[in-house]
């Protein structure tokens, strides 16, 4: 185990180094920050002084070594735009993004796991029908609401086309589901069709729709910012206040959309595969209740892919929060990085990318460790 851990750590350090070169070179190629930072009125001497201050006059490899040396001491440079250490700027904003991403993963797990489980189980069982109907209603009610809102509240007969499209969707899917409760595997197919829809929905557009319906038309939830926060351990969190949670719901749901679909597919595939295995047959022959077979034995077996994907997707979700944060004006690192790209704020971009790389490496490491705990074969095989 120690050897395994050591080897992985060494690999991680190497990848980190390789990525630091790539990121540094890549970001160096982005525009000329001097044009933005130095006022056009500055004379040649002033210009030269600023360039020298920022270290932009030295050769590239020297700048890289300087950057690397500082990075190892935890200094990733100062933001050109905010004149603040880039790392502090990012760490200050990071909790907001982590909170958003974690909420999204939680939503994906809570909604996706049961749906996938039941889509994968053999049909014609009572809980399946119940779950399918409930899921159908959960989906169709807000959609019908949206259709009604579009029809009623939008100016001058403007809504009919939109309302019709949505009503079709809202009625069609549950209708398919309801029809599916009787024939053999239609409900499962309907969930799968729904998951294709989930994969296809453009995140930012859904975000705009959520804002339009729940913030503008209904006025139930706020559309921008984090709301009231509470400081715990010196970090501000939204999820501990009612106002903060209200602010969190829409963006988290928006960000969760893709992961819900992914979870449904993953769990369904896992369940279908596992139900055919010898150990499930054995458990059945032993006379275990179906509930125990599914909730203990099958669930345990599919946890490996679920843990892997959940872990790997966490990094992707943090990265993708760039989009959601821009739509909902959520003050996290995603919004910061988009602003920094516009302002050519190199140190912030570099620091952000390095943090993302570090995050991915840590996630991969954690997933590998979780693997070796959940599946002894990985550990014993000594796989790198």
């Amino acid at each position, binding site marked *: 185990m120690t050897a395994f851990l050591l080897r992985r750590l060494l690999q991680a350090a190497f990848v980190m180094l390789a990525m630091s070169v790539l990121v540094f070179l890549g970001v160096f190629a982005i525009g000329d920050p001097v044009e933005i930072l130095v006022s056009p009125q500055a004379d040649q001497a002033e210009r030269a002084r600023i360039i020298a201050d920022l270290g932009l006059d030295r050769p590239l490899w020297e700048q890289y070594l300087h950057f690397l040396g500082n990075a190892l001491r935890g200094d990733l440079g100062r933001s050109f735009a905010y004149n603040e250490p880039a790392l502090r700027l990012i760490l200050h904003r990071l909790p907001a993004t982590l909170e958003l991403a974690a909420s999204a993963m939680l939503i994906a797990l809570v909604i996706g796991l049961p749906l996938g489980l039941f889509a994968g189980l053999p049909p014609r069982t009572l809980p399946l029908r119940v779950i399918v109907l409930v899921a159908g209603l959960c989906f169709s009610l807000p959609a019908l609401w949206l259709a009604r809102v579009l029809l009623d509240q939008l100016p001058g007969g403007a809504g009919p086309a939109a309302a019709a499209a949505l009503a079709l969707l809202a009625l069609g899917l549950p209708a398919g589901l309801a029809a599916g409760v009787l024939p053999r595997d239609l409900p499962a197919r309907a969930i799968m069709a729904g998951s294709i829809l989930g994969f*296809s929905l453009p*995140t930012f*557009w859904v975000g705009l729709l959520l804002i339009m319906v729940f913030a503008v038309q209904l006025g139930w939830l706020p559309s921008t910012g984090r709301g009231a926060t509470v400081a715990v351990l010196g970090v501000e969190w939204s999820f501990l206040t009612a106002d903060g949670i209200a602010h969190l719901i829409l963006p988290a749901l928006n960000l969760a959309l893709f992961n819900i679909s992914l979870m449904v597919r993953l769990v369904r595939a896992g369940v279908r595969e596992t139900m055919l295995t010898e150990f499930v047959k054995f458990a059945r022959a032993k006379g275990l209740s179906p509930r125990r077979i599914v909730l203990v034995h099958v669930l345990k077996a599919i946890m490996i892919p679920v843990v892997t994907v959940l872990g790997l997707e966490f990094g992707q979700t943090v990265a993708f929060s760039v989009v959601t944060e821009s739509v909902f004006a959520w003050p996290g690192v995603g919004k910061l990085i988009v602003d920094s*790209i516009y302002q050519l704020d190199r140190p912030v971009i570099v620091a952000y990318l390095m943090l993302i790389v570090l995050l991915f490496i840590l996630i991969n490491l954690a997933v590998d460790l979780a693997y070796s705990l959940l599946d002894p074969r990985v550990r014993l095989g000594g796989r790198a």
Partner: protein
Amino acid sequence: MSGAALAPDETPLRRFLADYAASPLALLGLLLLLLIAAAAILAPWIAPQDPYDLAQLDILDGKLPPGSPAGAGFTYWLGTDDQGRDMLSGILYGLRTSLGVGAGSAVLAGIVGGALGLLAGYAGGRTDGAIMRVVDLQLSFPAILAALMILAWLGKGVANVVLALVLVEWAYYARTVRGSALAERQRDYVEAARGLALPAWRVLFRHLAPNCAPTFIIVLTMQMARAVALEATLSFLGLGVPITEPSLGLLIANGSEYMLAGQYWISFYPGLALLLTIVAVNLVGDHLRDVLNPKLQA
């Protein structure tokens, strides 16, 4: 293909078509995709107005709701944007950019990634190791961020977006194609082709490549849907296509500020068109995967 013997009059192609047609949902997806593609290609002839000919726009017609009559004698079925541009025409032209960028980048990335994957799978050894390390590195970094960085470097532009998408997507093809090339390499026909002392490129492209085609086609459709979505996202963030060639993503971004004022149609309908496009491609791809995957064919 699976081990099952073919009936005398049954060619693999016919069998594939029959398998594909077995799913009504997939047929619907294909039909939808063909319709959308036709609408995009025929946009200059079927759109009520040329949305980029400023002479045809009337600023007084700005932000009209869907169904309003236009001064020029037609109806704004999907309303107008703040410039008085017919949204239906804007969407039809936007589809051209979106589909063009999506298909173009998917095909280009497929050629680059597919060739590298074939090479890695066939050559094995150090070549394989080198190519796959780069693929691993690429796949460990989120595509959206990589694309953002590349575009921040290259600047806006249709060609730049295509290049960025190719750079972030080739690795998916390389990994998948390498997998099937590795499996195919063990087959007797490859052995036979090498026994005939055919040049390596011939074995690669004439013998190995066609047999890796099924997996390649699956990745191609999936990545095309991804490319369309990614391009829309980049354009929405303001780093994608320029304002002179707006894609659906840019149309949505332009309308987003009016959404809060209740003028939903400016970004709602382009989004619906985008959704339908991606759903259609995904439906086709999803079913192709079921049909072409030899593991699922008993």
